[in-house]
């Protein structure tokens, strides 16, 4: 009988090469599944288990996950776009035109990058308000909220610096309007304006600065803070669930609602002969 794809995959997973790469080993036991998270450099930011309650759609609307999704799409479309783009005047505009009309799928890449960028700004705001209205920013998660505010600012800067790159009228004047606000800062406003643009007006220097910020400095900064943001979720006790908060649990325990683990005494004696299956549900 012919082997199924599943069997081939299982055999592959048993090979020495595979085992040398993935230390967690194969199998579907709880231990192996926990190791798959814990032994992975990227996934170990997350806890190995999650409470079912916090995964319901209504709890988070998956807004944080979706924001990560837009970020991944932006990196995946942004890197190919960089291959066709020169951050110089007026070549930048010609390159954008080429992306529209000459490069295979260039139009699609640029469209997707643009709309995903708008979606990311919107989702970051939505995520922030959702977290606020659920009260998920409270102790011990205060600092993760602060990191979230930093990520909001980085997202706005990423979108803003990317806005200039096509070097069309829309880009030029949006950045001119925006950067003039920097001049309004008391005392050092003009210095900040000059530092941001590399001159007194939006020109070739500004384009190069915005390009470096947009393609290197800000994405790397964002990844750095995203990593901390995710890691802190685990360190701060997992995703927020009101019913799992220590204060709520204590209140329930006082009222005798949640005493699943027996405590010594009268109540415990009744549960003493417990064997698997005797506990209903």
């Amino acid at each position, binding site marked *: 009988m012919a082997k199924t794809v599943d069997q081939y995959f299982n055999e592959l997973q048993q090979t020495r090469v595979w085992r040398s790469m993935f230390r967690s080993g194969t199998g579907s036991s709880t231990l192996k*599944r*926990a190791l798959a*998270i814990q032994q992975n450099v990227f996934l170990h930011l997350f806890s190995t*288990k*999650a*409470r*079912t*309650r916090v*995964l319901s759609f209504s709890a988070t609307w998956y807004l944080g*996950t*979706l924001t990560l*999704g*837009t970020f991944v*799409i932006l990196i995946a479309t942004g890197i190919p776009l960089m291959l066709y783009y020169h951050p110089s005047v007026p070549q930048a505009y010609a390159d*954008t035109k080429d992306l529209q009309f000459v490069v295979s799928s260039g139009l699609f890449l*640029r*469209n997707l*990058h*643009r*709309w*995903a960028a*708008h*979606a990311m700004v919107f989702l970051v705001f939505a995520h922030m*308000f959702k977290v606020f*209205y659920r009260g998920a*920013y*409270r*102790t011990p*998660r*205060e600092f993760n*909220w602060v990191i979230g*505010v930093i990520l909001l600012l980085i997202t*706005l800067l990423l979108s*803003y610096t990317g806005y200039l790159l096509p*070097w*069309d*009228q*829309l880009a*030029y*004047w949006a950045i*001119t309007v*925006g950067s*003039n*606000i920097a*001049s*309004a*800062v008391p005392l050092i*406003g003009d210095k900040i304006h000059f530092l941001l643009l590399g001159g007194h007006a939006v020109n070739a220097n500004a384009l190069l600065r915005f390009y470096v910020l947009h393609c290197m400095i800000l994405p790397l900064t964002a990844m750095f803070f995203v990593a901390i943001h995710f890691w802190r979720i685990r360190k701060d006790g997992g995703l927020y669930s009101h019913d*799992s908060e220590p204060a709520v*649990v204590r209140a329930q*325990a006082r009222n005798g609602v949640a005493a*699943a*683990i*027996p*405590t*010594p005494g009268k109540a*415990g004696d009744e549960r*003493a002969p*417990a064997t*698997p299956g005797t506990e209903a549900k």
Partner: protein
Amino acid sequence: MADNKDFVAGIDSNAKKSPRRIVFVTRRTSAQVKAETEDQIQTFPEVLFRAAVAIMTLATVLIWIALMFNAPLEGLADPSHTPNPAKAPWYFLGLQEMLHYFPPVVAGVLVPGLVVMALIVIPYFKVNIEADGLFLKDRVKRLRIFYVVASALSIFLLFFKVYDALVPTLVMAGFMLLAAQSSPASPSAFRRYLAGRPLSYWVMTWFLFELVVLTAIGTFFRGPGWSWVWPWQG
């Protein structure tokens, strides 16, 4: 019978979902176990699977939009020709709307600076942690403070003729007054809800309301010279 033992044993958790825990609690140590048990699932593969489904759904929607609608691209940047109006990206149009009314140092520096500061200190305010209804304690005193703050803000906005920021402020003040007249014993579920809202809720909701209104006005209702135009007037 049970008195012969000096411990109690319990078996907890669903073995199919998470590792089995067997707890022995001796009488002498009398440990107080406070933890509540909750259903848990493994991050791999269940949570990752859900995240993948969410991200793929989003990607499908965005790819569809990218196939249907082209990103805007206007003529080559021309420093000598200023379009009218020159608009910032949409997420800054709330700020640009404020810039129309106030000097740049107020609308461009002070307001966004204060907003970012306020966002950062939100979790460190004791008033948020307690999360009691704003008017449930010290009702008279708090209502007095509310009247002073709300009127000062409204007069300030009226003075600068910022009607598009004044209207959301007055609407929010109306809801807060309704909350002050409500209690957790109100017959209407909506009024019970309002009565339980803490100060942080009111401030944040006011901010969200202003953000949406000002951004929408800046995006759809502003034409040449930042004058008011209706979207259908082209």
